[in-house]
């Protein structure tokens, strides 16, 4: 063979390519690689800001089990607790604990772990952000395989929190032995995967738990890379560097899933886009609020800006939530919007003016969406000025009840209960509430302690109807989560939005 300079260069380039990157082939996936969209700051799922960050719950749920299992449709199922309930007069709760479960270090999981986890979560000094819920239970004790606690303050949602934020069972003996820092270094749980390696801001490598009580996961090794840039995630999955990724732009999603070797899975998740109305200035005028709601064509926004990936909503409940009522509908009616504004003396020539705040790039097409909404408003006689802010500023202003008359936000509620959507978002005394009128506070207040579940849910539906009729908030649509994956992987989406590797199998 004659070796020319050209052929030498070609051979060198080819060998470099083969040496550096070994593209993962869909049909022979031994190690599942996921390009994840957020970093994992901390391993303890019960303390600190990470504990209430919905975007990393999927990582926690891969390693730790919650008290109660949540199925992909958001409904509860027996998990580490096999059964649970209140006593007759609702002064006690009881929980039966699953037997035969092992911690990742091989030790036995016991009822004492559940008791300790609940008691620890209830103590203020441990720094559990949901302490105000766990603190409603006291005097935790173990009787055989049952954990019992006294109810200090009745909360009808207490068992729902057991599959929501911070509702995780941690290993008592191990945690007490290694301490908080030791646990952070080498976390163990009872979950489907065990932490093999963790490099902050880089990746976590998981090994399947061979003793998992709910069936051993199909992929023995899973590497989750933290790829926070959407462009890089697209490139990762397109190049074969990763098998699965999520939260890519919708237009990229359509392009990628049409490619050979790649597929897509999309499903609505428990995250909604909405516009808060603040009870100040022109928003105190019923006609202005109602006109602002009727003027928006939600389906058009979904079709034009989100490539059709979204579900229009009329209350803060999505179809998966317990208090969803399809009969509550606020129709798109620009003529009605014009009439309402005319009643208050506004028109396209003499528009009502206010500021709307929005993030830009925090959620898909958030700024563009608000631009479209402002355009729709302009056509009926509303002149809104857009103010862009960071999401950190939104939280600050909301906590201080200092938002502009209108403010765009996305609200997550992976437990699906109305208290954690309409409740916290619309109840005046809550720091997250923006509309604080007394009439609404009076309607919501009795529902917090309603012990009849059916009456409770019906009560929330009535509240949602009342809110819709009075246009106290503007729900826009439910987000759809796009997941791109190699054709060799079957992904089961979870309505909470958590990307769970143990729900992935070989196609």
């Amino acid at each position, binding site marked *: 063979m004659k070796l020319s300079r050209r052929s030498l260069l070609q051979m060198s380039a080819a060998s*470099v*390519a083969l*040496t*550096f*990157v070994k*593209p993962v082939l869909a049909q022979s996936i031994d190690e599942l690689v996921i*390009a994840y969209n957020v970093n994992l*700051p*901390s391993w303890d799922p019960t*303390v*600190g*800001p*990470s504990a*209430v960050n919905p975007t990393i719950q999927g990582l926690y749920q891969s390693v730790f089990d919650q008290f109660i299992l949540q199925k992909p449709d958001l409904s509860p199922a027996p998990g580490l607790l096999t059964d649970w309930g209140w006593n007759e007069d609702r002064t006690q709760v009881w929980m039966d604990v699953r037997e035969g479960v092992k911690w990742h270090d091989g030790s036995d999981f016991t009822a004492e772990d559940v008791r300790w986890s609940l008691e620890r979560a209830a103590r*203020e000094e441990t720094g559990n*952000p*949901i*302490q*105000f*819920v766990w603190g409603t239970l006291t005097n935790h004790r173990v009787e055989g395989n049952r954990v019992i606690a006294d109810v200090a303050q009745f909360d009808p949602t207490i068992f729902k929190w057991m599959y929501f*934020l911070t509702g995780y069972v941690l290993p008592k003996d191990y945690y007490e032995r290694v301490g*908080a820092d030791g646990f*952070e270094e080498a976390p163990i749980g009872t979950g489907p995967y065990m932490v093999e*390696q963790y*490099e*902050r*801001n*880089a990746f976590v*490598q998981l090994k399947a738990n061979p003793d998992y009580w709910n069936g051993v996961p199909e992929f023995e090794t899973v*590497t989750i*890379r*933290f*790829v*926070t*840039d959407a*462009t*890089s995630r697209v*490139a*990762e999955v*397109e*190049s*074969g*560097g990763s098998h699965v990724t999520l939260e890519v732009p919708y237009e990229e999603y359509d392009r990628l899933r049409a490619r050979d070797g790649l597929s897509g899975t999309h499903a609505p998740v428990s995250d909604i886009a909405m516009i808060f109305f603040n009870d100040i200035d022109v928003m105190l005028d019923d006609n202005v609020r109602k006109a602002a709601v009727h003027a928006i064509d939600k389906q058009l926004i979904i079709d034009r800006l989100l490539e059709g990936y979204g579900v229009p909503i009329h209350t803060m409940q999505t179809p998966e939530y317990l208090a969803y009522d399809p009969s509550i509908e606020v129709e798109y009616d620009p003529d009605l919007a014009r009439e309402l504004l005319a009643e208050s003396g506004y028109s396209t020539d003499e528009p009502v003016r206010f500021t709307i705040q929005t993030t830009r790039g925090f959620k898909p097409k958030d700024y563009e969406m608000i631009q479209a909404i402002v355009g729709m408003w302009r056509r009926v006689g509303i002149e809104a000025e857009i103010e862009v*802010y*960071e*999401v*950190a*500023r939104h*939280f*600050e*202003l909301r*906590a*201080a009840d200092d938002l502009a008359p209108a403010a765009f936000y996305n609200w997550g509620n992976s437990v699906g209960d109305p208290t*954690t959507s309409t*409740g*916290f978002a619309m109840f005046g*005394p*809550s*720091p*997250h509430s923006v509309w604080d009128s007394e009439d609404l506070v009076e309607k919501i207040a009795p529902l917090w302690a309603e012990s009849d579940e059916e009456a409770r849910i019906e009560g929330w539906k009535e509240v949602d109807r009342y809110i819709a009729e009075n246009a106290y908030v503007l729900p826009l649509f439910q987000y759809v989560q796009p997941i791109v994956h190699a054709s060799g992987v079957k992904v089961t989406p979870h309505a909470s939005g958590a990307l769970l590797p143990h729900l992935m199998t070989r196609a």
Partner: protein
Amino acid sequence: MILRRVLLRLLTTLVTLLGVSVIVFVTIRVVPGDPIAMMLPPGATDDDIDRLRRIYGLDRSIAEQYFIWLSGVVQGDFGTSIQTRQPVLNLVLRRLPATLELSIMALVIAMVIGGFLALTGTRLRGTRTEGAIDVTNGMALSVPDFLWGLVLILLFGVLWPVFHISGRISPNLTSEFSTSFYLFESVFRLRFDLWLDLVSHMFMPALALAIPLAAIIGQLLKQSLKETMHLDYVTLSRTKGYGENHVIIREALPNAVLPTLTLIGVQFTFLIGGTVIIERLFSYEGLGNMAIDAVINRDLPLIQGIVILFALLFTVVNLLVDMLYAVLNPRLRHA
């Protein structure tokens, strides 16, 4: 004399760092975005908010907070990260080597490319090749580094997948290291398998950072070389019969390189600053990537720690460049 100058520089460095710390401390507390508001769970009460403020010491005045922080820093305690609940110093020191290695690699690439372009342009001055080099330099300069990053991802990550798109090293290999200076350690231990894996991860972000700097180096060095080529001592060496390559490299370059060296020092600090965006784009686990998370989450102690470290890096690099310049420049050496 030199010792006095170094001591003076160290003193000004200390004052600079103190000034930076005051500015950063105050700025991140007065700009919009409250870290406590960001961590409020649904249903939190005013008491919960007050409790969290007390826990993180945010219930005190800014001046009080600053002096508490400063007294901690003097004792080597930069505080605890709000997000990760880890000591800030540990976090930044663990990430610093990754950023330093990336920056140094980018600098080396920039010097090689820039030097090659300058020498070639000087050697072939007045020809079409010099024109092509000028155009290339112009293109490289007019595109910011993060856009070069995107182009490189598309070219060498997707279309021709030669290099890794994200991360610093393949996950299976991290346990092989005993320090955080992976690249240097792999060389010292002659573990070229590790080195190759590191380079395949680092090359694209380093090249993205290097391209604009290479153009600057190329332009300045070429200009400087061309001016030097007209000096008498260069003409003399030509008349002695030395070839053009010898004249450029052995005679003109040592003098022409001095202004470029100063520029490289200044640009290196900008290059370290540029790692913030590039590390994010390539999910490279350095300080820059961590800085973005810290800012998004309003992790005040971590932001302070990272900024102070960056400021320290900048001043140290400038100090080193000044010293190197003094060593290389005979006029300063004998002044």
